[in-house]
């Protein structure tokens, strides 16, 4: 198993674990962290491809993903705090009325 295969497998595994966490966990903050894990898996695959091709495009994209992840957290945490202030719980089952 060469290096690229190993890193790609790790990236796929991280993304899948993050997806599984978003689906099965109840806690809103834990789901947010699992989304961060998915972003990390994508970043790892981008860095692996950039390393393999010797091009800077993947690295630029990783940098932009960093910024987008920061913006996402900056807006997601206030929303979570607001939800918790209303419902007094982090449990996602309390927010089913948001289904629309």
């Amino acid at each position, binding site marked *: 198993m060469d*290096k690229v295969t*190993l*890193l*790609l497998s*790790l990236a*796929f*595994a*991280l993304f*899948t*674990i*993050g*997806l*599984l*966490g978003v*689906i*099965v*966990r*109840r806690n809103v*903050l*834990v789901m947010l*962290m*699992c989304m*961060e*894990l998915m972003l*990390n898996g994508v*970043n*790892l695959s981008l*860095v692996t*491809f950039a*390393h*393999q*091709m010797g*091009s*800077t495009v993947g*690295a*630029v994209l*990783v940098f*932009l993903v960093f*910024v*987008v*992840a*920061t*913006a996402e*957290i*900056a*807006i997601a*945490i*206030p*929303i*979570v*705090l*607001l939800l918790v*202030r209303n419902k*007094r*719980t*982090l*449990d*996602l*089952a*309390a927010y089913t009325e948001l289904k629309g």
Partner: protein
Amino acid sequence: MAWLLANLDTLLLVLFAVCALIGAGLMLVLQQPMRVALALISTMVFLGGIYGLLGVHFIAAFQVLIYVGAVMVFMVYAIMLLDPRDPGVMRRYSGLLVPGVVVAALFLAALGYVAWQDAPVPPNAGGPTGFGLQQFAVAFLNEYWLHFELTSVLLVAAVVAAIAVIRVNRGERG
């Protein structure tokens, strides 16, 4: 000993990969949000180690500085702000546990199938693998300056939105 030194890079890479995977797996089974956050931080640090081993040191530095230093510290503050006696923390999994596992396994199988069915990207024929900060900086500010500006606009929008969310909440309370 000589063999160990010759393969040190590969051994460290495998070690970091296994540790990152263990941290990610712990995120699924731990109950307290703070422990999940610590598992995620360890995963991110090991990923930073992998980036360093691949020779992209600036991305490793950004991984630790931005992800661990900014995003996760913010997350840990949010966890500390919330009530630890929350009953929602006590129940770990939603009712979607079995379908979720099935979907994730199918998804992983599909990813692996696609990646190994299509021959992966042809290996770089003789060209330089890896690149330094200099090539990155030149490419970044020559070709991708517009994207850089757009992300700064996105950050401003996020900050304004966060302030707006807080103001809406204040208006409701009084």
